[in-house]
């Protein structure tokens, strides 16, 4: 391999067919005289612009597109050299870092120019790169294997306090990776809350053959209106107001009246659904306000999420407190929940989390949100990247529609796990992420095979690495229902 060009932070390297370099590979351009080396990553492989190739291709097809049949007597065997030159490749590489002092110092600088004639270019094994970049730590999470069969192990602390995105088109392995991250976090006694839109995460505590696995006791599946109900008396007014305003769009005037009714019932210690309905019916207020309150009241009642039976009410707090000590995942199963009820449940859970975190009853929570645009209200997006992070909610968004996540989320994302995308628009959206350049995203993500993801961001110290996500022995749930099977 030979260094051909360097423009900005792009290096072009001439490579021959026997020097097998592919997209995603790392190369080391070593200038021994300078005592420095550039770490570059191949983001595209092109044919080298060899003069005369066009003429050769034309020459082979002169007969109306049919190949001319002929015999080449080539006694010196020049033909292999011709194909060798013809197949020369140009590796378009992104400069990732400079290594100095025998690998001790790693800096993101690309301000120097290695010698074109003297530089030695060789492949940099991912395992060596990980050592150089110090991608390890005390709380290892093995994501899977790299192309070179070495393991990619990240540090759980790189997810702590971070905003993460897992994205890719359908059936590429997003949920699989999020399950891997969840179970790995559980090993370190983390508290995890999952908004499970398709009921996929319920089997995390079971092996694929239905036996209990080590996480069994740590997995708490809460299905709204079944084993997950709340009694009004357990609710804080602010949480219920959040549901009424954001999920059920209660206008301001009506909200004020509701607040009064709530205070009235609380003073009477009769915060039940029945009493609430009666209070609205008898409350001295404008008929329109009464109608508005009634419509919301019936929405709450019909959701089946609220109950007057405290024994029936499953306390989210209990699960969270249990998880606080030895770790646990609270799976909020939203599979058979209607859109409105989903929002009610999510508002409740998020409101409760904020309440517990602000009062320091909980230290921090890892929140995994699948297709969050289907239940997250508009204002929460900004909350998640700003306010909630400070409360201790560290969110991981999982989506196959990257344009449903706001641009500012991409810009502030600390880690992105990118699976295959072929659609230009999808790639364009993801390329807005601040932790990686658009060329890398567009070039590498397009060619990722299923179960392979491009890890970007702090987990890999900003060295994008392609990894085949390792298999996980958990029970698969939430499969797509098929007609022909």
């Amino acid at each position, binding site marked *: 391999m030979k260094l051909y060009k360097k423009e900005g932070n792009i290096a072009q390297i001439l490579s021959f067919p026997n020097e097998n370099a592919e997209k995603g590979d790392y190369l080391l351009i070593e200038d021994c005289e300078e005592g420095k080396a550039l770490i570059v990553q191949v983001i595209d492989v092109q044919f080298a612009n060899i003069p005369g*190739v066009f003429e050769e291709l034309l020459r082979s097809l002169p007969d109306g597109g049919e190949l001319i049949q*002929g015999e080449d007597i080539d006694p010196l065997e*020049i033909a292999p*050299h011709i194909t060798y030159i013809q197949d020369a490749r140009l590796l378009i590489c992104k400069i990732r870092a400079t290594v100095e002092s025998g690998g001790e110092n790693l800096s993101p600088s690309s301000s120097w120019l290695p010698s074109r004639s003297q530089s030695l270019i060789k492949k940099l094994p991912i395992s060596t790169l990980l050592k150089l970049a110090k991608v390890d730590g005390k709380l290892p999470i093995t994501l899977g294997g790299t192309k070179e069969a070495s393991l990619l192990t990240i540090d759980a602390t790189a997810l702590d306090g971070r905003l993460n995105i897992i994205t890719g088109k359908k059936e590429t392995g997003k949920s699989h990776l999020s399950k891997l991250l969840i179970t790995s976090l559980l090993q370190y006694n983390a508290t995890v809350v999952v908004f499970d839109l398709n009921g996929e995460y319920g089997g995390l505590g079971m092996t694929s053959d239905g036996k209990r696995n080590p996480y069994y006791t740590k997995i708490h599946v809460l299905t709204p209106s079944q084993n997950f109900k709340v009694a009004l008396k357990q609710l804080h007014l602010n949480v219920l107001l959040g549901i009424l305003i954001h999920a059920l769009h209660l206008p301001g005037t009506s909200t004020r009246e509701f607040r009064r009714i709530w205070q009235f019932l609380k003073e009477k210690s009769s915060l039940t659904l029945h009493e609430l309905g009666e209070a609205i019916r008898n409350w001295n207020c404008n008929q329109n306000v009464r109608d508005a309150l009634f419509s919301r009241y019936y929405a709450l009642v019909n959701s089946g999420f609220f109950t007057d039976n405290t024994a029936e009410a499953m306390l989210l707090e209990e699960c969270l407190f249990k998880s606080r000590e030895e770790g646990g995942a609270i799976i909020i199963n939203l599979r058979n929940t209607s859109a409105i009820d989903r929002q009610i449940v999510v508002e409740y859970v998020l409101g409760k989390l904020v309440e517990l975190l602000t009062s320091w009853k909980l230290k921090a929570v890892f929140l995994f949100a699948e297709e969050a645009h289907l239940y997250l209200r508009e204002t929460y997006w900004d909350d998640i990247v700003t306010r909630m992070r400070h409360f201790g909610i560290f969110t991981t968004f999982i989506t196959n529609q990257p344009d449903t996540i706001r641009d500012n989320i991409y810009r502030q994302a600390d880690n992105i796990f990118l699976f295959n995308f072929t659609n230009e628009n999808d790639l364009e959206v993801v390329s807005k992420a601040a932790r990686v350049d658009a060329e890398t995203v567009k070039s590498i993500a397009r060619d990722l095979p299923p179960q392979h993801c491009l890890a970007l961001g702090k987990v890999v110290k900003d060295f994008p690495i392609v990894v085949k996500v390792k298999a996980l022995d958990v029970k698969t749930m939430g499969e797509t229902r098929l007609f022909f099977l």
Partner: protein
Amino acid sequence: MDMSLPQRFVEVSISSLKKLQTRPIQLNQQVFQQESINQEDLYMLQSSQRLVPLNPRTIETTIAAVDTSSIKLGETSRGIIIAIRGTAIWKRSHRYGYIRVGPFIFHITEENMKEIYSTLQKTYFPEQTTSSTGFTQIPTRMANLLEKWLQASLVQTISDGIILFDGSLTAGTPDTPTHQLREILAAARKMGNTILAFTKTTTLRFNGYIITDTLLNQKPPCLIEMSDLKTKPPLVLLGDVYVAKLTIGNYAFRLDIDKEIPSQQKIEAVERLIGNDLLRQSYPETLRLAHILCTFTANEVIAMQHFIQQKYGLKMLNRPDMHRLLFGPYGKGENSYEAI
């Protein structure tokens, strides 16, 4: 097919290259293809021309052609490195087939130049005496040897066909000894073949005009027979000279047809060519393909340089071009004046 000449080409090629191991090789700053320069000392005694209209004959006929190419790959302190390749191509039943021989790479020095040439020449044309050859003409001369071998092989392989040569049927030059061309033409006649030799550029003039310009107003396809042409010794015309305008457009070529075949057969041969081959810009496609297949592309030149570098450990150098250095964009490069 007698393969003794290509075999000898290989032996001489390897032997010449072995002697230059570890020597640095100076790349050409401008690598360009060999173009044969046909400078004939022909003149016309009087202005006798005969227009011959042509009618295409579609009777199934094999059309074949031969061409060779040579190129300079670089220079060493002792000489030059050249490559030679030749192609024989034929069209039969609307399909093309070819044999391509080479490339053969030679290291030519002042010392080995004569030995290499005579060794090759004696292999196939033993009765021919070796004439002195200039350093710059040697690639053309060696390519001509290969071309003559290909021509001689082709005329004995094909029967009742039309065989196209690149150039004229003028003999008596160092490249084309008279008896050698006579033998090729005789062998062709014996097999029922007719040789048609197309010259792309001619210096032959009539009334002050290049002869190929005289036909431009005629309706194609047609020929003009140029009679009473004389040559200055030792040149000998072994063909009758025509100007051929075979398609619409401002293209006409000098066409030499074997003198020894009857006039009617000559005309029929051209008519069979028109009826069996594709013609564009008045030039037969088979002959064009022969040229295309043997010409070296830039990539092939790089590949051959790579071969000698890998196999014989030569170091490639690129000396500064003094014309470019001194005159910048106004310097055309010293090699543009070189003829190889």
